[in-house]
């Protein structure tokens, strides 16, 4: 490779490289939304409250915060403690989590002195602050002040601040807390003090003492409240540091079972213990605890695996974790089995939905495992429903029906739905959704009769949609947008492909329009893209006529009401005709489009010896040429070719116009909105009349050749032949063998005549320096001689 070629290569490489980056950035940074990367119709939030962190996504450590969270439980505990109807939950929250130390100190002081104090309005209006200011509640007020003091040594709100050695401060607080505890009679407040002391012990790395203090202060307490469980977690952590990992894991599993708000913490700590569920079985007091342990460990795995679910069920069929475990398995099957299958079906009708899985592509041979897994899950769910021991029986019934659906067993899904009517409203919604999926998939043809029914279903779904604010469109969990995503999936991956398959592009476009209005993306293209880039002129005219017609069904009116209003159909039709070089047909449509709305060019008639530069105004080319003016001129020029003799200039101008609106031309934007730098001519382009010309520029080559033949000027002939050579180079099929590909480029059919008959022309001398393929051809020919 000589240096010129190297530079040319480098430039094209950079173009490809940066082209990619732009492409990725334009697609949202190339990041995959962890809440929306496979097709799902199964709402994890239906059942499984408290296990939200472990709802399935393989792209994030945790899915959502558990409910109720720690603060909610803590606030409720304080409300129960106060046992005073005038104290509001919100005021307790504000006091504990938002008040500063000074405010708390003032209240504690006032409460201790038993005086009437002058409080700020904000404090006076806080029912909990006023409750604490009462001298009867001095212990509680003083405790909360102490807790506030402890907060600053156990929590660092700014990780970038230097905290230094906090041990002396923690020791001082510990001593102070001991003293305060001694004067407290209320057992709830005493327990909270003991928890603070235990935490200060643990954070000073006094692990043996932590275990001893827990056993002394909490060991006998039968209570199972938040404070107890937080203390138990401290003991578990201390045991871990004392190398008793199995006991530590067991105690963390107990915390996991008892307190949703502490589940994420307990789960993470169990991972540190390097144990398996069965390792802690010996410590479990009953099968309920063992089932909880199995569930906890199973939440670590993103892979399809029925074993833990089956094991947990055998241990405790009423275990609360079974429902979220089942949902996880269903979601995993959706991700790895169902989505690739839907994508493959769409692929077969020419729609690339853009989903992918760990398996890369759905492969029948690899898919067998998932089919077996899905069948095993089906049998398991059916059996659980039959025995009726699970906690959320209705949920399991709908799950069994949905598993049948994702297994493509539509009659099995239908019979289960019929057999299992459900009452719970949340589960009823899931039931309706599965029912809709089954009936939709049963349809061989989407006809008017079914469309009427479908309208009812779509309107029902609309009542379930979450509100999507203007500034958000992704990174939303299914808590808020499950039905939005389900509706998007139904429209984009079932209904639109169905119309596409039956050749009804008008309805396909309308459905895509409805999908676009959900603002969650329409795969693989939305209505606007379909109109402006995908549809043929005939299809667009049909859509245009339909949109204007008065005679529409209710279903059609519904779809049209969501169709983008600002699409310029006349322009789209004109451009679609231009794509297949039908300039005569394009012209009347384009003439209806205001000049300012048409794509326009300065250099559309300037031939290109190289693929560089932009179509901008220059000193020589100051006149703007609109798409309709271009078509008008093309129609005139093509008309001239019918009367012989035809001048070389006419042929040359036609060829230049055709080349310039191709992928390589400066005026590429006349036919396409976007030119990715990664596309090129491939053999596939031969099948599509537009792509054949856009990437293969065959017609431009023919007209340049005719121009060369018609001319008598040697310089002009040389120019046209070189331009024809450039066109010929564009449709050299790609070859995996770089050498062969390079040889086909060097052996351009126009090079021999250029090199032998025109090597004395100024044009030849100019392009010889620019075109390394021509140089290599000449060098190769000389060697042969």
């Amino acid at each position: 490779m000589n240096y010129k070629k190297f530079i040319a290569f480098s430039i094209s490489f950079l173009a490809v490289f940066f082209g990619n980056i732009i492409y990725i950035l334009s697609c949202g940074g190339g990041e995959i939304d962890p809440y929306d990367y496979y097709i799902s119709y199964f709402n994890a939030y239906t059942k499984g409250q408290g296990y939200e962190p472990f709802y399935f996504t393989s792209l994030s450590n945790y899915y959502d915060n558990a409910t109720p969270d720690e603060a909610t439980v803590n606030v409720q505990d304080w409300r129960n403690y106060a046992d005073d109807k005038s104290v509001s939950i919100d005021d307790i929250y504000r006091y504990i989590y938002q008040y500063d130390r000074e405010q708390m100190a003032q209240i504690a002081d006032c409460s201790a002195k038993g005086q009437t104090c002058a409080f700020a309005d904000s404090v006076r209006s806080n029912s909990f602050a006023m409750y604490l200011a009462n001298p009867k509640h001095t212990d509680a007020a003083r405790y909360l002040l102490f807790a506030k003091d402890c907060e600053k040594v156990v929590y660092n709100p700014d990780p970038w601040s230097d905290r230094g050695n906090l041990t002396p401060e923690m020791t001082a607080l510990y001593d102070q807390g001991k003293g305060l505890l001694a004067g407290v009679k209320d057992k709830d407040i005493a327990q909270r003090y003991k928890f603070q002391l235990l935490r200060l012990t643990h954070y000073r790395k006094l692990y043996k003492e932590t275990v001893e203090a827990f056993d002394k202060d909490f060991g006998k307490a039968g209570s199972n409240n938040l404070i107890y469980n937080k203390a138990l977690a401290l003991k578990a952590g201390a045991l871990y540091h004392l190398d008793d990992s199995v006991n530590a894991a067991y105690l963390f599993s107990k915390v996991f079972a008892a307190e949703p708000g502490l589940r994420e913490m307990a789960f993470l700590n169990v991972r540190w213990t390097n144990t398996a569920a069965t390792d802690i079985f010996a410590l479990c007091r009953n099968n309920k605890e063992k089932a909880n342990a199995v569930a906890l460990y199973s939440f670590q795995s993103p892979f399809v695996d029925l074993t833990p679910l089956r094991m947990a069920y055998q241990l405790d069929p009423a275990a609360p974790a079974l429902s979220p475990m089942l949902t996880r398995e269903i979601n995993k099957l959706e991700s790895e089995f169902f989505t690739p299958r839907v994508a493959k079906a769409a692929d077969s009708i020419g729609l690339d939905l853009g989903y992918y899985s760990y398996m890369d592509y759905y492969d029948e041979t690899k898919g067998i495992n998932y089919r077996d897994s899905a069948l095993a899950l089906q049998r398991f769910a059916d059996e659980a429903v039959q025995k009726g021991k699970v906690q959320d029986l209705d949920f399991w019934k709908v799950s069994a029906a949905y598993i049948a659906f994702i297994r493509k067993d539509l009659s099995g899904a239908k019979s289960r739905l019929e057999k299992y009517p459900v009452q719970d409203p949340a589960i009823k919604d899931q039931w309706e959704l599965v029912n809709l999926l089954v009936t939709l998939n049963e349809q061989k043809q989407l006809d008017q009769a079914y469309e009427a029914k479908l309208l009812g279903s779509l309107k029902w779904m609309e009542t379930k949609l979450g509100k999507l604010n203007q500034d958000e469109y992704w990174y939303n969990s299914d808590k808020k947008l499950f039905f939005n995503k389900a509706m998007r999936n139904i429209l984009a991956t079932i209904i639109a492909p169905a119309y596409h398959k039956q050749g009804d592009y008008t309805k396909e476009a309308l459905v895509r329009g409805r999908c676009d209005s959900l603002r969650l993306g329409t795969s693989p293209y939305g209505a606007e893209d379909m109109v402006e880039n995908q549809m043929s002129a005939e299809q667009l005219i049909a859509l245009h006529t339909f949109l204007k017609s008065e005679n529409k069904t209710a279903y059609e009116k519904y779809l049209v009401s969501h169709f983008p209003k600002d699409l310029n159909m006349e322009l789209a039709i004109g451009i679609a005709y231009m794509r297949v070089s039908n300039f005569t047909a394009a012209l009347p449509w384009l003439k209806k489009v205001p000049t300012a709305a048409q794509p326009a060019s300065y250099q559309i008639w300037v031939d290109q010896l190289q693929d560089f530069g932009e179509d901008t105004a220059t000193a020589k080319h100051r006149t703007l040429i609109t798409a309709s003016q271009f078509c008008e001129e093309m129609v005139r020029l093509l008309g001239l070719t019918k009367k012989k003799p035809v001048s070389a200039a006419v042929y040359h101008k036609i060829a230049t116009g055709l080349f310039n609106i191709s992928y390589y031309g400066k005026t590429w934007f006349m036919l396409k909105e976007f030119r990715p730098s990664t596309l090129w001519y491939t053999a596939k382009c031969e099948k599509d009349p537009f792509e054949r010309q856009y990437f293969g520029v065959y017609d431009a080559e023919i007209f340049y050749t005719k121009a060369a033949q018609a001319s008598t000027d040697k310089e002009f002939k040389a120019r046209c032949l070189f331009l024809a050579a450039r066109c010929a180079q564009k449709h050299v099929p790609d070859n995996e063998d770089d050498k062969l590909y390079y040889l086909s480029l060097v052996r351009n059919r126009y090079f021999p005549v250029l090199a032998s008959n025109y090597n004395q022309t100024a044009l030849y001398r100019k392009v010889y320096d620019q075109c390394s393929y021509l140089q290599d051809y000449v060098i190769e020919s000389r060697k042969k001689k």
Partner: protein
Amino acid sequence: MRLFLLICITLLFASCHPAVERHPEPAFYFWKQSWTGNPVELQYLRQLPAQKLYIKMFDVTPDAVSGKPIPVAVFNQQVPLPAEQPVVPVVFIMNEVWAQLKDSLAMADFTGKTTRLLESLTKTLPGKSISEIQIDCDWTQTSSSPYFNYLTKLKEQPFFKGKTISATIRMHQVKYRTSSGTPPVDKGLLMCYNMGDLRKAGDHNSILDLETMKAYIGSDRISNYPLPLDIALPLFNWTVLFEQGQYKGILRNIGETELSNHELFIPQGKQLFVVKNDTLINGYLLRKGSELRREITNVKLLKSAANLLAEQKQDYSPTIIFYHLDAATLKNYPLHELQEIYRLFN
């Protein structure tokens, strides 16, 4: 003829490079989070004697929730460090951090934060003043651009004025210098350990292996490196656990003593041990059939490595830093042996 002889003699002398007289300085890394004033560590520090103590002040890692860089494992002195001990603060930055620092604002914020925390933490360090600061990051070709940009920005911070900035250089970054790039700092620290694939099962030593080292440094990659290079040598051992050929982790408190128990472990090959039965040992649950690989760096191996490294001399007296000052492992490395090792770089 006389002229010819004169030319020959001149050429002969010109081709001889004068031997560089070097005065390597010994030093230690301190990579633990808390300085507790352990007597063994103090003894090694004083008697080596360590001209510098490289202390890791904090790690920077992406936050699990926000993805933003946060400092973790911040160094603390439970008792004061020896007075007058020159200290080089080190910051370890995980390579994943750079992906989050896409724009110049984020980079400026990060530079400011690391500088401020470093400045605050160094106030309590002994020694007259901090003359060197080291940044440790296993950068890759992709992350080199933001990382190098960060290093350049650091230099512009007032706190770094007049201070030497050094950066750690991994073996692969020396071998693939063109693609890795050279960090824009005053000097480098060549990490002569962790050169193999820790996670790959099999009977090999991922900490230090002479053949691997030769392949990395070649015959002149150190001497030709465009930055003066200090050298770090390992003083640690560990045991690596594999279950069914899969890497599971490093077991820090299972060593020769535990592995010599043939009731529990069957030795295999040079440094492998197979677990006989499910066993709970020192807080680890080991399953039957799992493999443990004991990786050690003994004095003999260290000397061979030092000799190999010393063959390539830069015109610079390197600091030889032993990684790291930890009483638990120092017993395997007598002081006089460490003194002999750093002098091999003379």
